């Protein structure tokens, strides 16, 4: 087990390194001039030259990438003569458009994204798991058909469309809720929740569809197994069958597949944040793409790739730990 763990971690580290190198090369060797892209629109000659010098764009690209890695581990300074911008470790880059280290910008936006993700997961998990279980237990009946239909709707609807409809119904038409404007949890928990209800629901509906499908498949698979039939034949109560077997059978795929869906959840979160105007990491990404703030785009892409790789690794390790049938070779 320990060897498997170490090998798995080493593999993940290699993938991460390759991933960051590709992202770096992709964006800094792009056809456009990276200095122009980093400096932003309407950047004049002098500031452009300054940005070029600070980024070290005249160095060979492998040296630039080395400095990027160095910055991640030890922090770095972007200097041009007396003008120095310090970027503390872990430095993902420095945005010359906002004059801030990318890491700081991300950390500033993190509470918003975390609030959104946590609330949505708290709604989606029970909703999705119970819908999936219900659909598996009522196989072949109307309930199953309805549940499958609803799940399909969740898969086929873009999250921003759900968000728009929610806004129209609850804010514009019924006027039960104010138009969402993010309020920090530390300022007022009640208004924090009130403003986040709609984004939570929108994101949770999409996620619940994923959970429901996974749970249903896992439970169905377990319920037809021989040992479950034997337990039923011995007179084990249905409630016990569900709790001990159906739910447990669904648990392993739920853990691993949830981690594998992390990219999809990030996508939905970016769209939700933009839709509701929540100033989170997703909205930052969209803003920096639209204003072509290259260092932020590169930083966020590397970070997102890291999250996916870490989630995949954790999923594999959990899967190996939870299911003794997995070969550790």
């Amino acid at each position, binding site marked *: 087990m320990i060897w498997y763990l170490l*090998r798995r971690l080493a*593999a*993940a580290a290699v*993938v991460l390194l*390759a*991933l960051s190198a590709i992202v770096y090369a992709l*964006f800094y060797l*792009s*056809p*456009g001039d990276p200095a122009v*892209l980093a400096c932003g629109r309407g950047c004049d000659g002098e500031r452009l030259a300054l940005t070029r010098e600070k980024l070290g764009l005249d160095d060979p690209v492998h040296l630039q990438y080395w400095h990027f890695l160095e910055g991640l581990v030890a922090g770095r300074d972007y200097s041009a003569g007396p003008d120095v911008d310090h970027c503390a470790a872990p430095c993902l880059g420095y945005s010359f458009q906002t004059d801030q280290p990318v890491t700081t910008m991300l950390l500033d936006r993190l509470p918003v994204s975390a609030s959104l993700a946590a609330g949505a997961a708290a709604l989606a998990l029970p909703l999705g798991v119970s819908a999936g279980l219900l659909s598996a237990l009522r196989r072949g009946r109307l309930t199953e058909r309805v549940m499958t239909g609803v799940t*399909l*709707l969740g*898969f*086929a*609807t*873009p999250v*921003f*469309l759900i968000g*728009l*409809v929610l*806004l*129209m119904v609850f804010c*514009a038409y019924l006027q039960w809720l104010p138009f969402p404007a993010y309020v920090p949890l530390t300022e007022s928990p009640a208004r924090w929740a009130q403003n986040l209800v709609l984004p939570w629901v929108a994101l949770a509906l999409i996620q619940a569809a994923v959970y429901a*499908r*996974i749970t*249903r*498949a*896992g439970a*169905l*698979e377990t319920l037809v197994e021989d040992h479950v039939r034997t337990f039923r034949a011995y007179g084990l109560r249905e409630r016990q069958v569900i709790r001990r077997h159906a739910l447990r059978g669904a648990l392993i*795929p739920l853990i*691993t*597949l949830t981690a*594998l869906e*992390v*990219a999809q959840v990030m996508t939905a979160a*970016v*769209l939700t944040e933009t*839709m509701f105007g929540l100033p989170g990491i997703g909205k930052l*990404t*969209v803003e*920096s*793409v*639209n204003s*072509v703030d*290259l260092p932020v*785009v590169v930083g*966020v*892409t590397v970070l*997102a*790739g890291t999250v*996916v790789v870490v989630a*995949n*690794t954790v*999923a*594999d390790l959990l*899967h190996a730990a939870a299911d003794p049938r*997995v*070969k550790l070779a």
Partner: protein
Amino acid sequence: MTLLDTELAPGAEPARKVPLRGRQTWRRLRADRPAMAGLAIVASMIVVALAAPLLCALEGQDPTTFHSGLLDSARGGVPHGAFGGMSGDHWLGVEPGTGRDVFARVVHGARVSLAVALGATVLELLVGIAIGLGAGLGGRRADAVLSRLIELSLAFPPFLLALALMAIVPQSVPRPLLLACVLTAVNWGSVARVTRNQAMALRGRDHVAAARLSGARPARIAVREILPGLAAPLLVLAALKVPANMISEAGLSFLGAGVRPPTPSWGQMLSTATTWFRTDPAYVIIPGALLFTTLLACTLLADGVRRAVDPRWNGRS
């Protein structure tokens, strides 16, 4: 290593290994009512997209002319009249703020949506099959290199990478073409993985050995002996990719990184609608309903295709 391990996870593989029997599959699909409903909607959407200039000529409007006279400047540019200014001249009303004809824009939007979704799917299949076959049949060294490449491509969050790439791609290329290429660049990995694994499994079969011994060239073996065995899983994967690409196009355009005005797209219209939904709900409902219906139809069709190819599929993944 990494992501190929996840095949151990149930549901990670898109389809079990079943041979494709064309006529039988089609018969099963014909009997599948939701799938046929999906197919009918998708087919009519394709007709609408192809006939977009014709339909606009019939209405007598085009998607780019501003009609500022039809807007109520006192209310910030909301169209005059009920339901977003629907009238005999403008069947679905006009766009708030600009006064462009909504009917003309949504039928041209169907073109963008379908062209990007289908175009990206075809390109992904081409790239994925080429790389997958290279890995599966090209010998140990090619497999080592290409498999690492496939793993890497699967490690990226595709939508975010596409979003980032749209920031740096040349602005002179037509946006729909660019979108199809960018979506291909971030999504080819799953096709390549399925192709590689299937090709590996088929490589050792007798009919492949027989072809090799009778002196067939590797390219001929790949096309005549291996590709037919790939038809079933790739058909399922392609059917799933169409709605996935459509939703990505809508999402990217919604975020302002996809199709740009004056070219219309449903996602982009919905993005504009976020500022108008209070005063002009029709402008949300029309592109929203079209996008939703088309996506649902594609998803129903994809599910049906999967059931038809593999009747024992139990609805997972």
